[in-house]
């Protein structure tokens, strides 16, 4: 186990606490850079979605994970970013301009949402963000002169530095990756600045933060604005990747998916946003694999266990019918959420930390290290 000897404050807030971080993240970046030359085009497309979802996850993490303000309305911010891009693109505005414009506009809208949210807490905040998302969705559907209503908008291929960037090509992937990496680095820098520490203080106790002289209202609005702005940037990439946007893509379902991203990844660290995005996006190819291959595998297993050919055939058909049942994906989503909330509240990154600590402390690891404290006493109503 490595012990870091910190001698001044600069050591404490360093981006890379020791050289191991530089090597491991450098290696990861190298792998991600050569990925387009190795992976199939389908997996590349999924990887682009991972980048986009992870960017949104980082934005949501700032708000929910670090400032403690739950939001079930982030699909609306994504929609605002996407529609801004699609609208400005019609007037031949260059990509960098509308990219920034989308982020700025979404950030401003986020700040505007933040103001009413100042007085709300817990469940009231959740319902207020849901309401906001509904209203945005309806505006997208009705403001036909700008958004083309329910028919949706086409998004042309991106023009960057005089060349056309195809949404399936490696350049687009590199762009998404760059946005993600910049967002993560920016967020890390934010979190080690006074602003970031104020966010965390507000999450841990609003009253304590206020008594230390933190302007709670200002920082909450800032958090909303930053979080929304990042989501707006992701929205531009989302629009380009799908090449077609319509209001029914940005429903409550999508907001819930974003929450699932950070919940499954772990709501306390930026790693969580990325891991959660990988999990959520990769579940689709995994389910497809299950649908295609599992019936054969199970039937084969049954046959080796002594079932007759006819029996195995029946089993194969039954499993295939089950796997292609309509709502299976929703059911699996539901089970995953419940299982994570119940058994792995720290998410995938929490699991990773546990495994790491197990090997570092071997054989002295004890489970109680990560045990959550139950609070039966405090009623959130009186907070």
């Amino acid at each position, binding site marked *: 186990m490595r012990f870091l000897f910190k001698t001044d404050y600069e050591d404490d807030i360093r981006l890379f606490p020791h050289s191991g971080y530089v090597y491991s993240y450098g290696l990861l970046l190298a792998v991600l850079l050569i990925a387009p030359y190795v992976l199939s085009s389908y997996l590349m497309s999924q990887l682009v979605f991972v980048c986009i979802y992870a960017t949104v996850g980082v934005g949501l993490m700032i708000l929910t994970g670090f400032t403690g303000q739950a939001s079930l309305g982030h699909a609306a911010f994504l929609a605002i970013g996407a529609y801004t891009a699609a609208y400005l693109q019609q007037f031949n505005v260059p990509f960098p301009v509308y990219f920034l414009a989308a982020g700025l506009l979404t950030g401003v809208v986020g700040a505007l949402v933040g103001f*009413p949210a100042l007085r709300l807490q817990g469940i009231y905040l959740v319902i207020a963000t849901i309401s906001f998302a509904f209203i945005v969705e309806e505006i997208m559907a009705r403001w036909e002169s700008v958004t083309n209503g329910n028919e949706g908008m086409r998004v042309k291929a991106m023009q960057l530095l005089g060349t056309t960037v195809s949404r399936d090509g490696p350049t687009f992937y590199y762009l998404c990756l760059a946005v993600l990496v910049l967002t993560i680095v920016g967020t890390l820098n934010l979190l080690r600045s006074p602003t970031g520490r104020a966010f965390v203080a507000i999450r841990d106790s609003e009253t304590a933060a206020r008594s230390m002289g933190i302007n709670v209202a200002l920082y909450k609005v800032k958090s909303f604005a930053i979080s929304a702005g990042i989501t707006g940037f992701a929205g531009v990439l989302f629009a380009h990747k799908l090449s077609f946007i319509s209001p029914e893509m940005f429903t409550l379902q999508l907001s819930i998916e974003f929450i699932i991203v950070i919940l499954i990844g772990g709501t306390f660290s930026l790693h969580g946003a990325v891991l959660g995005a990988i999990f959520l996006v990769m579940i689709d190819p995994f389910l497809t694999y299950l649908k295609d291959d599992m019936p054969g595998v199970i039937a084969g297993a049954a046959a080796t266990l002594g079932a007759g050919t006819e029996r195995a055939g029946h089993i194969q058909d039954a499993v295939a019918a089950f796997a292609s049942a309509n709502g299976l994906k929703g059911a699996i*989503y539901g089970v995953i959420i419940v299982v994570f909330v*119940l058994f792995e509240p720290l998410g995938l990154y929490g699991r990773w930390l546990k495994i790491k600590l197990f090997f570092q402390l071997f054989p002295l690891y004890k489970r109680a290290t990560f045990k959550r404290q139950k609070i039966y006493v405090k009623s959130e109503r009186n907070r």
Partner: protein
Amino acid sequence: MLDFVQQLVSGIALGCVYGLIALGFVLVYKATEVVNFAQGDLMMLGGFFAFTFIGLLGLNYWVGFAGAVICMALFGMLAERLVVRPILGYPQFSIIMATIGLGYFLRSVAGMIWGTDDFKIETPFSQGVLRIGSLVLAYDKLSVIAATIILCALLYLFFNRTTLGTAMRASSENMLAAYYMGIPVKRVVSIVWAISAAVATCAGVLLAPITFIHSNVGLVLGLKAFPAAVLGGFGSIPGAVVGGVLIGVIESMAGFYLPQGWKDVAPYIVLLAVLLLKPEGLFGLHVRKKV
């Protein structure tokens, strides 16, 4: 003028529907401070149980109704035991997520079992209208209004006059203190989930002639009932019904007098406005912040 009254009455009937679902939200919240996002889906499931008993097995309406209520009460207890009890005492948000997950699961499973078509239950209230002057009221809507009033009164009395109701309120304020006072907190929570699932079933069965039953009905109506509960102040039983009626009337008026598209948004705009002015809802208790 007649148009206005007609819209008002149909708005009230619609609002009672929302109020009935909101009652379930409020019940669970009042007793355990858990917000149950799967409430609408419990309602949907109750409707499907009733459909199975009445439509498929051909039982008498009232027998099927009672059967569905009992089945769903047991199911509510089961859901509480499996999903909610292990995380009682943890931050509210994780419980919200768990119930959202439960809702996803129930919706998909119901879709797999009963299919995705619309179903209808034949009820004694399905046909016939009441005429007062030139005002026309359908019996199915009147039955919803009556049931809402009865259930609301019963639950209000239950919470304020019975020992069990008082125990429920106590355990919502402070579980640990309630436990020290000899209240079996776990059993209380379990009973509350049973009651709320039963109330949801009543809503589902009464709604069946109006909205039909399909696997997504819970999501659609649940999301409308939610603002109703918030509008009334989340912990208040009369508040849930008043909030529901307000939302229903606003929706019906907006649908009639405003251009298309306002109908679905108007309740949420009103909700946001109310939350801005009175963050604890219309009937919510104003609690001063303590350190």
